[in-house]
């Protein structure tokens, strides 16, 4: 016998009448349902954003937790300060130094994951109807946060050099003309989620100047900066700005473990003080236990070697995915070439809706990705997808991309039949493209019909 109360339809109506207005903006359940299927064991999923924690040595974890048990059991089980432990802040300062930034402990607040920073910053700065500016596409997980505070989200297009700063300025002028001042600009400048692109040096400088000129805050979200597979690092926005207008979000999730739920924010004193009050209201403090775990791993410098190993692993998987895309995705598709991070952003011909494609991919091929529309607030992105390459094995990457390529090919060929355009071509011709990732230059493909590409195509575009 259960004592669970029976819910009737009337009561549902009653609850619905009690929901806050802002919950109406909380979006999407059909996709959430589909995404739930992607977790089934038989599915090769490129949908998550998971680091590969299977590489972390269990013996190391065991030693760290044993030390905590023996040396600081009571405090690990106790509440901690709202702002976080000083020891954890020292670890954060070390990670930030590795990214080229100086941070004093009084500039820092330890949070329950980086996601909480987005929430706390929005909670601190945004009244209903205020403008928040972000990239197009943006981190899908940020959208529900902005929505829940009833922000008016304005997205700025990106190209291969990150956010188009010229479009940002145009937008800021337009908003200014309408008497609307954006509260902050949210950006993932390095190895962006979901697009995989990195904001160029000149654009970083200009963005920081704009923030100063217009007295706007920037929330720099940098989970992937240390997951670099090639090239030289660019200075973080916070390093360029000195921490005056730039709020910096960091996290241990991608370089160590999302399971510890530890992130941080570095912000100017007055902003940090408000954020701390918000944090107190939300959850009093971040987990003492996991802060001690992080301290146990990061305080002796071992983390640097681990991050290097992860980079080697992810670089190989990225290359495997880029090779597989070149081999199995059609010539009409385009995709980004990330120099780091966890994601590739692929765009298909515009007649393909990637939400429907996901249903087909799951149903027929047991393979999954994130449909691009999740990264936009305005219905764009419908023919794009985000592909994660950090968690699947090389073999799974090859097989999974082959399967997605197959369903895409089927849709393209069917569209050709339906619209009277011939798109058939021998599959064998495509093998030559392996490793190039570029449009085919085989003269044998010259008569292949090319579909119109989407406006603002990303690959190779260099506008600023």
């Amino acid at each position, binding site marked *: 016998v259960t004592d669970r109360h029976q819910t009737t339809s009337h009561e*549902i109506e009653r609850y619905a009448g009690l929901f806050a207005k802002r919950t109406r903006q909380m979006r999407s359940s*059909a996709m959430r349902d589909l995404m739930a299927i992607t977790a089934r064991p038989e599915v090769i999923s490129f949908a998550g954003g998971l680091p590969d924690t299977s590489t972390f040595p269990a013996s190391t974890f065991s030693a760290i937790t044993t030390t905590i048990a023996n040396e600081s059991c009571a405090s690990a089980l106790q509440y901690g300060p709202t702002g976080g432990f000083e020891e954890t802040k020292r670890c954060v300062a070390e990670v930030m130094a590795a990214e080229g930034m100086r941070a004093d402990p009084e500039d820092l607040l330890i949070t329950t994951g980086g996601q909480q920073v987005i929430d706390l910053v929005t909670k601190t700065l945004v009244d209903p109807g205020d403008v928040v500016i972000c990239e197009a596409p943006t981190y899908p997980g940020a959208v529900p946060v902005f929505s829940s505070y009833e922000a008016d989200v304005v997205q700025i297009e990106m190209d291969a050099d990150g956010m188009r700063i010229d479009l940002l300025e145009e937008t800021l002028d337009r908003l200014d003309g309408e008497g609307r001042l954006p509260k902050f600009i949210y950006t993932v400048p390095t190895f962006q989620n979901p697009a995989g692109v990195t904001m160029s040096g000149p654009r970083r400088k200009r963005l920081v100047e704009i923030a100063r000129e217009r007295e706007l805050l920037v929330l720099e979200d940098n989970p992937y900066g240390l997951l670099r597979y090639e090239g030289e690092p660019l200075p973080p926005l916070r390093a360029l700005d000195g921490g005056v207008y730039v709020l910096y979000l960091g996290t241990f999730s991608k370089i160590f473990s999302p399971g510890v739920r530890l992130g941080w924010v570095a912000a100017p004193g007055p902003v940090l003080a408000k954020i701390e009050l918000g944090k107190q209201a939300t959850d009093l403090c971040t987990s003492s236990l996991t802060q001690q775990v992080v301290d146990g791993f990061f305080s002796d410098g071992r983390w640097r070697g681990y991050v290097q190993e992860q980079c080697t692993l992810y670089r190989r998987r990225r290359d495997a995915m880029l090779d597989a895309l070149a081999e199995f995705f059609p010539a009409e598709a385009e995709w980004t070439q990330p120099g780091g991070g966890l994601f590739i952003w692929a765009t298909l011909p515009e007649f393909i809706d990637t939400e429907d494609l996901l*249903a087909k991919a799951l149903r027929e091929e047991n393979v999954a990705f994130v449909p691009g529309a999740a990264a936009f607030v305005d219905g764009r992105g419908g023919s794009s997808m985000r592909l994660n390459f950090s968690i699947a094995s090389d073999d799974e990457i090859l097989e999974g991309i082959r399967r997605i390529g197959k369903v895409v090919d089927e849709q393209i060929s069917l569209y050709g039949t339906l*619209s009277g355009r011939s798109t058939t071509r021998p599959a064998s011709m495509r093998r030559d493209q392996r490793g190039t990732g570029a449009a085919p230059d085989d003269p044998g493909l010259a008569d292949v019909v090319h579909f119109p590409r989407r406006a603002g195509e990303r690959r190779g575009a260099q506008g600023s």
Partner: protein
Amino acid sequence: MSALRVALLKGGPSLERQVSLRSAARVEDALERLGLEVISIDVDTTLVEQLRESDADVAFVALHGRGGEDGTVQELLEIVGIPYTGSGVLACMRCMDKVLTKHLLTREDLPTPDFFAFSEVAFREFGAAKALPAIEERLGFPLVVKPAAQGSALGIKFAGSPADVPEALIAAFSYDERVLLERYVKGRELAVSLLEDDGGDVKALPVVEARTKQEYFFDFEARYEIGKTDYTCPADLPPEVTARAQELAVDTYRLLGCYAFARVDMILAEDGTLQVLEAQAIPGLTETSLLPQAADAAGISFDRLVERLVELALRRAAAVAV
């Protein structure tokens, strides 16, 4: 009915897995309140073994979509010999396949919007694309493109002009090998739920009207999210329209050979006619689903509804055994 063992079939690999899990969670609570023993089975490749091991007296099928609602699981239950809730194999096949449903309706002169149905093979191998202009002329715009077998509103698209049709077809073919193109009928969306009474007669429950804020479309999201759709039950209709809708629903139920319960979705067109869109052999049983709301409006609690479905399952099995 104390001490009965009920195998509750839920989840499965269909795209409506999450909806099924929500339906099943409510059903499980109800079964437990009724004092029955529940064995929950998340349907996968071990289903037949699990059913055999369950030693269940009856199976409650809380599955939606492909596999669970199309006769497949029902066939397995027949083979394993466990009585089960809801319609039998043939009725499930007829309901799941919207094309078959509409052909049967048309044959019996029951109203349903004009339509044409094609398989992917027709387009790939028989040049069906050449027939599209004639179809478009016949159906007019906007027209609706749907996968033949998809229980929820996934994959349903509206085409406003000929240029939109190929894209809409591609979307629909993502869910099934067959699609139908249907005349768009503007009007009010009505859902008539049906439930057999203790005497085994099918009775139409009060009509539910569903209204979303969106212009065209009762979409998947609205259908399963609290607060996204306005439901009115009983729908505010003239008594004779309610009576006609209920009569049409009963006729559809009988035509398709449904058993125990079902839901018939229809449009009250602007010209006053009623047009059947489709029938659900296993209507949703979630907190926002229409059949439980309609039952509630008729004074039948969710627990009583679940109890009756179990009784009807046992009664059918007993009748077959005799």
